[in-house]
């Protein structure tokens, strides 16, 4: 008999907000010394009250829109009670009765084709802290930095059949969420619980289901699914063991799953609505505002860049990172040419980063500075090689392009605007020479040229001066 795996995923994603979900503490759990990102509220001190971070609700709505969900117009926060030292209030604020998004779907493509995965719901919740075990002193310490960091949990329907599909789904979520500024999806910012059962192909009935908890690396998830599927097959086909519905833990080193034999699986979480947080009502206006301010998707950006004449390769590179698109858009908005901008970001910035052993995602430059360098080069104020030199200084010495050029004597002589100012000044200061020249005395040109060169302290480009002189004289 041929069997198929039935796999469902619960994916926790840390949201990219400035502050935590119910207090003003900074987000980004991974940063900071233990217990430095904590306030009386997220430490669960007596008398403290949670206040919902509106941004969290909007990012959850954004995720729901991307995954084609129905956005709830009435959504509530509920308390989930259990005792654990990393949970300061001994309850977690989550959404149980009225989650913010329901009934979505997402298409995943593998080498075997494209399939649609159903999304049961997306809900918002707070993260717990972290326990640090010190084997040497046999103590356990609690770090509350991560407490109350905002998460969304995306619950899929049991629609996956292979580990490949799961990988494609997670990769797609990652790209979508990064691109929409929902999550930075850094290492550990995406964690999965995987539900697995197997059944004869074509059967509608479900087999015994096991759940593998809390995995954060894609390769672990793949290996865990493969291991667990094989274990179920062995049990069903060869009777190696009797499967029980249970929660299991993946051991990455041993390469196998282990039963978590503890009372947690039978816990009664006593969910009830948190009376400190009023139900959130999502009206048409708010939902529309979130839709309107939604960053363009990869597909939309691709179409936009095609219309601007960028190559397939350039588009693929730019759309690999939201930040690169943002930089590109900002620089072109300052008036720079799209093709030229793509080339400066990808070829020039990319080349310098590579030279310093960095990758594109680490690029940090303000649009104004990059635009200024490009302007100097395209205006022939400095040549491209000098431009590259300035760019490197901007990237690694935080230099200002103009100040750097001046300090390193780059391009002063070619600055057409500056030279034009000098030309105009000289013309105005010597009306007789101008009169002579216009009267036919061509020799007077030499006198005017000499005056400009003197003003420029001999640093002028003769060609530029001559051209500008002729241009300005022709206007008189």
């Amino acid at each position, binding site marked *: 008999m041929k069997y198929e795996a039935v796999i469902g995923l619960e994916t926790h994603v840390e949201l990219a907000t400035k502050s935590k979900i119910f207090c003003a503490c900074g987000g980004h759990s991974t940063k900071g010394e233990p217990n430095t990102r904590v306030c009386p509220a997220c430490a669960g001190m*007596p*008398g403290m009250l949670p206040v919902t971070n509106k941004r969290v609700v909007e990012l959850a709505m954004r995720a729901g829109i991307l995954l084609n969900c129905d956005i709830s117009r009435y959504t509530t926060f509920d308390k989930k*009670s259990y005792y654990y030292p990393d949970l*300061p209030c001994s309850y977690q604020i989550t959404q149980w009765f009225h989650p913010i998004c329901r009934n979505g779907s997402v298409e995943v493509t593998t080498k075997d084709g494209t399939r649609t995965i159903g999304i049961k719901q997306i809900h918002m919740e707070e993260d717990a802290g972290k326990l640090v075990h010190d084997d040497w002193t046999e103590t356990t310490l609690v770090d509350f930095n991560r407490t109350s960091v905002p998460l969304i949990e995306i619950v899929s329907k049991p629609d996956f059949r292979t580990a490949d599909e799961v990988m494609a789904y997670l990769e797609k979520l990652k790209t979508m969420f990064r691109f929409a500024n929902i999550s930075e999806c850094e290492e550990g910012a995406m964690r999965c619980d995987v539900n697995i059962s197997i059944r004869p192909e074509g059967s509608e009935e479900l087999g015994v289901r096991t759940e593998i908890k809390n995995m954060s690396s894609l390769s672990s998830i793949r290996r865990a699914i493969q291991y667990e599927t094989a274990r179920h097959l062995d049990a069903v086909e060869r009777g190696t063991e009797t499967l029980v519905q249970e929660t299991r833990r993946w051991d990455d080193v041993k390469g196998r799953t282990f039963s978590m034999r503890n009372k947690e699986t039978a816990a009664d979480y*006593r969910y009830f609505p948190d009376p400190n947080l009023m139900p959130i009502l999502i009206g048409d206006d708010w939902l529309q505002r979130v839709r309107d301010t939604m960053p363009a998707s990869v597909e939309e950006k691709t179409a936009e860049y095609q219309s601007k004449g960028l190559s397939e390769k350039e588009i693929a590179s730019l759309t690999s990172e939201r930040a690169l698109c943002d930089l590109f858009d900002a620089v072109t908005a300052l008036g720079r040419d799209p093709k030229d901008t793509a080339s400066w970001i990808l070829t020039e910035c990319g080349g310098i980063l590579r030279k310093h052993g960095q990758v594109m995602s680490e690029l940090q430059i303000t649009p104004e500075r990059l635009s200024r360098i490009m302007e100097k080069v395209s205006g022939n104020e400095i040549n491209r090689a000098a431009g590259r030199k300035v760019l490197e200084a901007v990237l690694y010495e935080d230099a200002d392009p103009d100040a750097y050029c001046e300090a390193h004597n780059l391009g002063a002589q070619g600055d057409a605007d500056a030279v034009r100012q000098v030309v105009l000044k000289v013309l105005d200061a010597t009306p007789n020479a101008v009169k002579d020249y216009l009267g036919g005395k061509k020799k007077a040109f030499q006198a005017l040229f000499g005056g400009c060169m003197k003003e420029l302290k001999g640093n002028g480009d003769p060609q530029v001066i001559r051209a500008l002189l002729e241009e300005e004289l022709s206007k008189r």
Partner: protein
Amino acid sequence: MEILDLTAVELGERIRRRELSAPEALEAVYGAFRARDRNWNAYTAFEIDPARTAAQHAQTLLDSGETLSPLAGVPVGIKDNISVRACLTTCASRILRDYRAPFDATAVRKLKDAGLVPAGTLNMDEFAMGSTSETSCYGAVRNPWNRGHVPGGSSGGAAAAVAARECVCALGSDTGGSVRQPASYCGVTGFKPSYGRVSRYGLIAYGSSLDQIGTLARDVRDCAALLDVIAGADAMDATSVTFPDAGFLGALSGDIHGLRVGVPEECFGDGVETDVGERVEAALDELQRAGAELVPLRLPFIRYAVPVYYILATAEASSNLSRFDGVKYGYRAEHYTTMEELYTRSRSEGFGKEVQKRILLGTFVLSSGYYDAYYNKALKLRQTLVDGFAEAFGRCDVIASPVSPTTAPALGASLSDPLKMYLSDVFTVPANLAGLPGLSVPCGFDRQGLPVGLQLLGAAGADSTVLNAGHAYQLVTDWHKRRPQHSEEVSGNV
């Protein structure tokens, strides 16, 4: 006249006129505490240094000529479940015995900003769970009218201190009557504002959807003046609201001509002590003489109030009190080997019996399989109460009743019959379930000489109407000016 015989508004006026200083007012209260509190056990602590600092600060503000509350410089006692920065805030519980709050409750911060002086921490039932102030880990509070009786609860320390002239006015908290009922038992004035009127930030929660900080004082004017200081929406409390009305003290006209006073049939009859019923009916006559119109009412739904209250309040409490686990702060058991033992021992040793009972009850009603039968059903009945009151307030402006069916029981009598104690909350819990403002004003004495209280409820947000009705009553009566003889006899001269 002694400083402590003045009302808060009178004291504030003397301070403003420079006849007295804020530090002098504080020392008077502190002196009374030191000389007399052994009789009543109304305070759990009186940390004089931070109070003196606050009094100095208040005097500086006053001297700078800044426009402040009419109560600037007046000392205010604070119930032991309201956070005062750097001071002991223990909920009269062993589990928080050494806990010092790292911040001020919003209400306390507003007091300080307006030049009032938080002074002394007032005794209470442990975690505000009780109607007698006997479950405190610091021992029972006594009723200043009769030491053999309880002062009511849970803000019993606040009521006793105000009655015994050990305190000018106080902040309490009211989850099911915890301000109004002790005010009634001790013959002082107590007000619970509409839910959301005062920020709960810094109030250590019992039942979050029911809790509200309230005021206990000599008269309605003092309560209104205090409310002017502490009311208002707060960004730190998502359930706080700014209601359209403000200026409670200024709104006390004392004119109640045409005010419709609802008189619910259910609150006058079986179960109400004869003396209590008679005194409250006499109060209704006074209101009528002052111009009010009495409207007979039926509120059949209030018979659900006590069971609904004890399901919702204990459910919320079981969750609110789960943070006291011995891990982060507060009491931790000395002996444990596993994590589970750390939890169970710390909580079993740290919480008193009444608190444990309510946590168990709340845990039970939220348990899977029982949620719909209890918690969910209670939520629906709560809505019935809200709707029923909304309908009743279409026909009247305030609803009058006794605060409690009895006067203060004898010490120990309630703990032996907890069901009777729970049922005695019948007239106070409806206001919490429906979020209504409720006032308790003294309206006489029973034949044992124990005070009787009249309760006036208003529609949500109609705090001014309720306060004005109480003020009108106090203009034509002097029950609120009576003081217990014992407060001097037992203590001797101050």
